[in-house]
């Protein structure tokens, strides 16, 4: 017989809110690259404004978690769940910050002529958003195997980042006038690489909730 129904209801509602925060961060990443692709400065400004809401949501979840700890004294897997929630919301908020950084770069680029058609950077963004969505699925479904798989896929992002880096380096060496524009794209790629690393941190927390073990899985080479 379930005897802490109210407590577990509140815990589940916190998990639902994580999904909301996750979708806000994921949308921010997606939009930031849309803004970059189409030079949509209006969209870039919206991302900057929306970041306030991401931060707000993170604090809301944090406060609810602290209240649950203070009033309900969670134990065992419930305790691990709340500790994981506190970590995951920080990661999601930082992912939002990377999207915000990209939006600022988009505004900096303004209407400068494009250096090259964007191919790998959107692929990095798509993959990051996909990994993020799946990591939250793994969190909700308590799927340790999937969490480990997603972490391993960070190599794919790292390889794309290498590729973007080398390509931009060639541009800069061939024509130093491209240095400013190439450096900005490099920042974008770097932000995406960092965001994907945050996803692997989320996966580590999923493993912790289920197994109780803190382990680094799929350490990024960056």
């Amino acid at each position, binding site marked *: 017989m*379930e005897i*802490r129904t109210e407590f*577990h209801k509140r815990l589940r509602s916190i998990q639902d809110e994580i999904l909301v925060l996750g979708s806000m961060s994921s949308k921010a990443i997606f939009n930031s690259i849309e803004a970059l692709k189409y030079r949509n400065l209006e969209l870039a400004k919206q991302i900057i404004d929306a970041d306030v809401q991401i931060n707000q949501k993170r604090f809301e979840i944090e406060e609810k978690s602290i209240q649950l700890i203070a009033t309900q*004294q969670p*134990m*065992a897997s419930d*305790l691990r769940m709340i500790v994981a929630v506190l970590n995951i919301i920080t990661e999601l908020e930082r992912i939002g910050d990377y999207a915000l950084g990209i939006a600022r770069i988009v505004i900096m680029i303004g209407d400068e002529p494009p250096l090259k058609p964007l191919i790998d950077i959107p692929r990095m963004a798509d993959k990051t958003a996909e990994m993020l969505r799946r990591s939250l699925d793994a969190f909700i479904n308590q799927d340790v195997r999937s969490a480990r798989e997603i972490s391993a896929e960070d190599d794919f992002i790292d390889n794309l980042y290498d590729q973007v880096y080398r390509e931009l380096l060639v541009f800069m060496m061939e024509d130093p006038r491209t240095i400013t524009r190439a450096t900005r794209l490099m920042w974008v790629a770097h932000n995406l690489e960092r965001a994907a690393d945050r996803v692997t941190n989320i996966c580590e927390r999923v493993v912790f909730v289920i197994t*109780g073990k803190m382990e680094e899985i799929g350490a990024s080479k960056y």
Partner: protein
Amino acid sequence: MKMNVTLERAAETNLCVTKLRTDMVSLFYGKFQALRNVSLDITPCSITSIIGPSGCGKSSLLRLFNRMNDLIPNAVVKGKVELDGTDIYDRAVDVVDLRKKVGMVFQKPNPFPMSIYDNIAFGPRQHGKTNRAELDKIVENVLHRAALWEEVKDKLGQSALALSGGQQQRLCIARVLAVEPEVILMDEPCSALDPVATLKIEDLMRSLAQNYTIIIVTHNMQQAARVSDMAAFMMMTEDRAGELVEYGTTSQIFTNPKDKRTEDYITGRFG
């Protein structure tokens, strides 16, 4: 006093890293089996909590350690219960002597209807100490150790029944300490106390654990989590016999229990 010799020798040579041990212990009250195959090693100078739902045999297990179950007719113990490597159910064991070494604090404070001083001096007097100066020293010493001295030093002659519930419970702990036990058994020692008195007792337990081996039965899981080094989770089987489900460090039991039944119980998924 065959047992004494054995116990002292064991303690002197420091052979035992286990203070108390139960080895496949079963307890029967007539036909009813209260405990089944409980095996547990308790390290010296530590606090072990026994938790579990009502009727799972926590108190029965606790009472095995100073043979309190002997007082119940038809109680039969199978398996071994050892103190410092000696079977305490051996015929040669003197029960009075065992209970001196293994003291007990009960759920409700139960001071004797006499003065604070006489409550403490009662045990030592029973064991032949009558010298006033010596008794004075014992009374002051144990009241200090029970963190009660400052509150009662000016009214040692007053009735112990006039003390508050929390003070009475600390007096009962002091009374146990006065006969120089090695192990202190506590059966829900805070269930009749308010939260502040409870925290005082817990604080006292932590300081006593430097010199004594403490085993506490508690329904309050937060208390077990706060105070104990090791935790044992017990449950009833279908035929209502109590079994030890999981035994581990308190931090492991409360953050990452291995057994699903422990997990379900301490997270309140059944109870």
